[in-house]
C-alpha cells in the first residue's frame, strides 16, 4: 500500500509504485481536482470525518443512554431521528432513523439486500461482510443460520425480525441491557455495546466492560 498522499499530481498514474486500482483512483482524483469538480480539502475532511468522528461509539452512546434513561428510551422508540439528534448525531446516510428494540420475545436484525444501506451517523461505515453477497443473500432467508455464522444462538422461542433497508430509513438495533450491569455509568454501559450488537449479529456481555 502506498503512503498517504494529500496532494494531487498529474504524473503519478504512470508510476510503477502504484497498483492498477491505486493508479486508477489517483487518475480520477487528479482529473476531478484539476477540473474543479472537487475541492481537495473537502476530500480530506470527508475522510477525517469517517475515520475519526463518526463510528459505532456514537451508536453505543445512544444505546447506553436508552438503557439508563427510560424517558430517553421512549423518545428513541417514538422518533429515532430526533432522539439521536439530542446527542448530536444525524445527517448523511441516516437522515431518517428507526430504533429497533430487542425484547425477550423478539430479536432484530438489520440488512440491506439491494446495496449497502447502513446507519452511518450512529455506526460509521459498514464492515466489508455487511456489504458482501453472503450476508445480503442469507440474512432474509436464513436469519438464524446467519446469526450462527457469528456464533450467536438465541434463546429458545425468541422470534427474529429482519429489517431490509430498501428505502432511506436507517435502522439501529437496541439490544437488551444484560444482567450484571446494575449501577453502571453510561460510559461503562457504552463500552459493552458493540457495533455487531447494534446490527443484530451480536449480543452485549458485561465481560466486555472497559
Amino acid at each position, binding site marked *: *500500500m*502506498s503512503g498517504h498522499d494529500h496532494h494531487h499530481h*498529474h504524473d503519478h498514474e504512470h508510476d510503477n509504485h502504484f497498483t492498477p486500482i*491505486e*493508479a486508477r*483512483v*489517483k*487518475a*480520477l*482524483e*487528479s*482529473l*476531478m481536482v484539476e*477540473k*474543479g*469538480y*472537487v*475541492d481537495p*480539502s*473537502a476530500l*480530506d475532511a*470527508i*475522510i477525517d*470525518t*469517517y475515520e475519526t468522528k463518526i*463510528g459505532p461509539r456514537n451508536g453505543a452512546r445512544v444505546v447506553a443512554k436508552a438503557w439508563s434513561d427510560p424517558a430517553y428510551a421512549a423518545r428513541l422508540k417514538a422518533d429515532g431521528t430526533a432522539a439521536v439528534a439530542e446527542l448530536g448525531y*444525524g445527517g*448523511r446516510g441516516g*437522515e*431518517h432513523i*428507526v430504533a429497533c428494540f430487542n425484547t425477550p420475545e423478539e430479536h432484530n436484525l438489520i440488512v440491506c*439486500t439491494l*446495496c*449497502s444501506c447502513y446507519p452511518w451517523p450512529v455506526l460509521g*461505515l459498514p464492515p*466489508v461482510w455487511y456489504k*458482501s*453477497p*453472503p450476508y*445480503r*443473500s442469507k440474512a*432474509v*432467508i*436464513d*436469519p*438464524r443460520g446467519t446469526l450462527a*455464522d457469528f456464533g450467536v444462538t438465541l434463546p429458545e422461542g425468541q*422470534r*427474529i*425480525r*429482519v*429489517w*431490509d*433497508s*430498501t*428505502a*432511506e*430509513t436507517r435502522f439501529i438495533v437496541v439490544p437488551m441491557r444484560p444482567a450484571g450491569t446494575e449501577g453502571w455509568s453510561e460510559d461503562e454501559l457504552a463500552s459493552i455495546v458493540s457495533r*455487531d450488537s447494534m446490527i443484530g*449479529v451480536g449480543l452485549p456481555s458485561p465481560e466486555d466492560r472497559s
Partner: protein
Amino acid sequence: MNSAHDLGGQMGFGPVVPEKDEPIFHADWEKKVLAINVAAGAMGAWTIDGIRHARESLPPAQYLSSSYYQIWLAALDKMLVEQGFLSKDELASGVAGSTRREPKRVLKGEEVPTVLRRGFPYEREAPAPARFKVGDTVRTIVMHPQHHTRLPRYARGKQGVIELVTGCHVFPDTGAHGAPETAQWLYTVVFTGPELWGRDADPTTTVSIEAWESYLEPA
C-alpha cells in the same frame, strides 16, 4: 432491474465471514473512493438512486467479483462519463482533456461538517393522504422493470401487513433516471417467513421492507 445486486434469498455464497478487528479502510485508495463519491454526489448532477442504478447495472459477473469500493469506483467512472463531466479517454490516460460540464455546486472543505450533519432528507410534503394505515393487509405488486426499483424480487407478489407509515418520501424508480422528483407514501410492510419462502420456512421469523405506495395493493 433484475440484476446481481438483488441478493435477498440467493444461495451459494457460503457463510458470512466477519474479519476480526476490521479496519475502517483496507487501503488508502478506498478512502479516496469514498471521499470522491461523496464530493461528486454533492455536485448535484444525480440522485442517490441514480448512482445506485449505475452500480446495479454493472455486468453481473463484474458486480459479484468486485469489492464494494470497486463497485463504487466503476459506477462513479460510468456516471461521470454519462453525465459529461469526464471522457473515457481522460479516465484511461489520467490526462485532462477538454471534456467539461459546469457542476451545480462544489463542496468546499469548510462546508463538509455542516453538509454531512444536515444530510439530504428524503421526506416531502404529501400530495394526497396515505392510502393505507397501520394494520392494513396489503400485497406487493409483481413487476420486473428494466429500470431501477427498490422492491426486491423476493418480496414481489407477497402478502404483508403495514406496520408503520413512515412518511411521504422521494420515489426512487423514476428519480434514478433523471425524471423530475416525485414523492410517495412509504410504509414498513412485514411478511412472515413462510409467506416469503414457503411452507418449510422458519415460522418464527418475519422480514420487513420499506415499500412505496405504488408497490402495494389492498389484499
